[in-house]
């Protein structure tokens, strides 16, 4: 087999933080190459470099053995490298054929011509999609077919799929696999990013595992089994330094049952799931992206609404609750700390003091309808000291702080509301190393003070380090529960992947 495409010693850093470190990756002609790894392992960044979406900070890309420069995705496409995204990049208000031939028209748009050509072309691929249908009317599987057809139309020799099966039904998945088979027969080489180990084992010729931005192993798929892949995915080097040995810490006993969730359902994202959370202990919830963990948390906190029929039951201290908006949940002591602080965490035009004070106002800690500046300053002073927010003073605008300090302000805004149950959704995402340790300390202190804490994370070392009890979420459901230190990375990851 000859090597078609190669990334040689490729590195990509975002603002000094490496996402991919010195990785060499080769794609052979006519192979299906699966790319596996945890969230944040660098899979997407690697493929984006190959597709011209991002530029390598160091290293080179070789096509047919010659160095190529791919400044934009259309340059990559012109050389036959196409990428099919998880969220489709089609124009929903245009028809299938219009999408396939979108960039072909020079000046005028010939509808009749492209419908006839589209019909023949889709038939030649054996795709059952109507070229005159609007893309917005198609299902996920059909949209993917259109994306693939577009790639083939551009004479793609390499097609990169980013989590192609995540949004498909089992039937559509089956179709997708036979389609990959057909593409392979046409001589197209395929890179396939996935969380689904079985699929990777089933359809790939070779397999690469990445971890923490580094290349771990590449080998023929026949030499792998599930165990070996999981071990390659979680075996840690770098992260051990940061999180240390987690076995040393004592496990907290469960206190009073604060929250019990029974058969919770929402929109097929959360599917009939049940679990409980106890006071005075940290419950970790692990799941890959799309496993419904954030949505379950948002339903509990009233940010999202559960299904009206058969939506299940949520009990707070034994009392059934159903929140339509977050405000009553906040007043009952359930606080959700968001995973996306910029989008729904802090108020960017306001200072640290104003942000924290708003939490106190909304949480009902100050009863008066007038604002006392002195009180605001005192509250802000107390909390920014307790959380060691590093800023010039509390009048600094939150938007000017570093990620870690922004997160501390968001947490302070939540804690000022005297919570009885705090849900931290990815509490250390985009936070620097020093602040991670501080935020973890803070979460531990909360649990020691008897608050019920739920920590959602897709980063295994974080979950293992901080949790007294671990719930594993998969496809909208809690599938496994581990007590204390009985879990290790392999068993958790094994439960979380499907």
């Amino acid at each position, binding site marked *: 087999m000859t090597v078609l495409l190669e990334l040689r010693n490729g590195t990509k850093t975002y603002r000094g933080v490496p996402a991919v470190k010195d990785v060499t990756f080769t794609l052979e002609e006519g192979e299906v190459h699966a790319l596996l790894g945890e969230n944040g392992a660098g899979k997407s960044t690697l493929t984006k470099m190959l597709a011209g979406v991002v530029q390598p900070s160091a290293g080179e890309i070789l096509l047919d053995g010659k160095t190529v420069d791919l400044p934009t995705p259309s340059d990559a496409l012109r050389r036959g490298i196409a990428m099919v995204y998880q969220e489709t990049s089609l124009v929903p208000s245009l028809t299938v054929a219009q999408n396939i031939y979108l960039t072909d028209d020079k000046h005028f748009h010939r509808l009749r011509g492209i419908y006839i050509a589209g019909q023949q072309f889709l038939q030649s691929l054996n795709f059952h999609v109507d070229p005159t249908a609007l893309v917005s009317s198609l299902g996920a599987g059909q949209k993917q077919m259109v994306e693939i057809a577009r790639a083939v139309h551009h004479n793609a020799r390499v097609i990169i799929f980013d989590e192609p099966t995540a949004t498909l039904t089992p039937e559509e998945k089956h179709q997708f696999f036979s389609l990959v088979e057909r593409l392979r027969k046409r001589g197209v080489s395929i890179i396939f990013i996935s969380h689904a180990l079985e699929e990777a084992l089933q359809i790939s010729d070779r397999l690469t595992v990445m971890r923490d931005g580094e290349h771990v192993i590449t080998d023929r798929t026949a030499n792998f089994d599930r165990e070996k892949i999981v071990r390659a995915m979680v075996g840690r080097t770098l992260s051990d330094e940061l999180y240390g040995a987690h076995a040393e810490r004592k496990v907290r006993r469960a206190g009073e049952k604060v929250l019990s969730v029974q058969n919770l359902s929402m929109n097929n994202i959360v599917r009939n799931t049940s679990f409980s959370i106890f006071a005075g202990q940290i419950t970790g919830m692990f799941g890959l992206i799309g496993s419904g963990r954030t949505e379950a948390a948002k339903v509990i906190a009233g*940010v999202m609404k559960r299904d009206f029929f058969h939506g299940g039951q949520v009990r707070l201290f034994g009392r059934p609750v159903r929140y339509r*908006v977050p405000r009553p949940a906040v007043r009952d002591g359930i606080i959700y700390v968001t995973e996306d602080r910029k989008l729904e*965490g*802090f108020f960017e*035009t*306001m200072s640290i003091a104003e942000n924290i004070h*708003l*939490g106190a106002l909304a949480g009902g800690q100050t009863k008066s309808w007038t604002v006392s500046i002195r009180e605001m300053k005192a509250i802000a002073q107390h909390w920014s000291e307790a959380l060691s927010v590093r800023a010039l003073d509390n009048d600094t605008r939150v938007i000017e702080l570093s990620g870690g300090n922004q997160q501390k302000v968001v947490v302070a*805004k939540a804690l000022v*509301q005297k919570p009885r149950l705090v849900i931290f959704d990815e509490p250390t995402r985009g936070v620097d190393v020093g602040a991670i340790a501080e935020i973890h300390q803070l979460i531990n202190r909360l649990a020691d003070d008897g608050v019920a804490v739920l920590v959602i994370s897709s980063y295994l070392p974080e979950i293992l380090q901080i949790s007294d009890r671990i719930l594993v979420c998969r496809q909208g459901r809690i599938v496994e529960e581990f007590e204390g230190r009985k879990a290790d990375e392999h068993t958790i990851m094994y439960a979380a992947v499907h």
Partner: protein
Amino acid sequence: MQGLGRLSQEQIVFGLALLLCAGFAVMLPGFLTTNNLLNLVRSVSILGILGVAMGLVVIGRGIDLSLVALMAISVAWTLQLVANGMSLPQAVALGLAFSLAVGMINGILIAYVEIPAIFATLAMGIAIYGFGRYFLFTLDVIYMPESAQALQWIGQGSLLGIPAPILAFIAVCAAATLFLRWTTYGRYLRAVGDNLPAARITGIPARPIIVLQYMISSLIGFAAGLVTAGSIASMNTRVANSTMVYDIILVVVLGGIGLSGGRGNVRNVVVGTLLIGVLLNGMTIMNIEYTLQNVIKGVILLTAIVIDTILNPRDEQTAQQGDI
């Protein structure tokens, strides 16, 4: 550029107003007299009051295009009721209640039905004008009846030599400033305008606050209507179809209240109003045609926005979200 970079749009506009003032003072002999200056502020005080109403809504990341129509119809109805023999306080109370009810419907449509503010209030403005003209009175100009003469003071009276409309403008500005800075609801309003999802998650009653903001704008609009009726002894409902609502938005945007919400203060409205006042007054003294005045107003607005964009470039995030 470094030093200039710290200037906000508010400061630029204020500087521009001072510059124009200086220019007019040198060029136009009658400009820098106490009388003319009082006249100047007085002539824009109604615009300023409405600007405060619009400013509060815009800080809450909304817009109220029904403001002028609602003002015209509710005050015209009040005058009509007095003319029909109702006592003045009773008529004012009814007009105010009508105004607040419409503001509340606006707020409910926007907060609960989740219609974009620009469409909800545009449609409401048209509906209210039609409703008033068809059901409440028949003429398009309602004159102030004898029994409502008490209202004339707030349009034509004065206290310590300061005309009443200016006092009304100052009072509204003071009340709005106190509301924004010193009350819990003012803080909530700004939070909702800054980041609605974050406000929700924090436990702020976001939807009631949105309803409140449109009720406040109706309330201030009604006050502006009374001042208008007082100063010209009538209410011309055709003002609802004029470009007045755009002038109000001009004042708000010119002063530097961002349409993206959360930013700005009553101060900004005052500054915007002053610039427009100086400009209009100077141009009127110079006897510039009305149509040409519009051209100059438009150019000034564009200039202020261009300077602001150059000095304070928007980051990627705001550029993506857009301004409304």
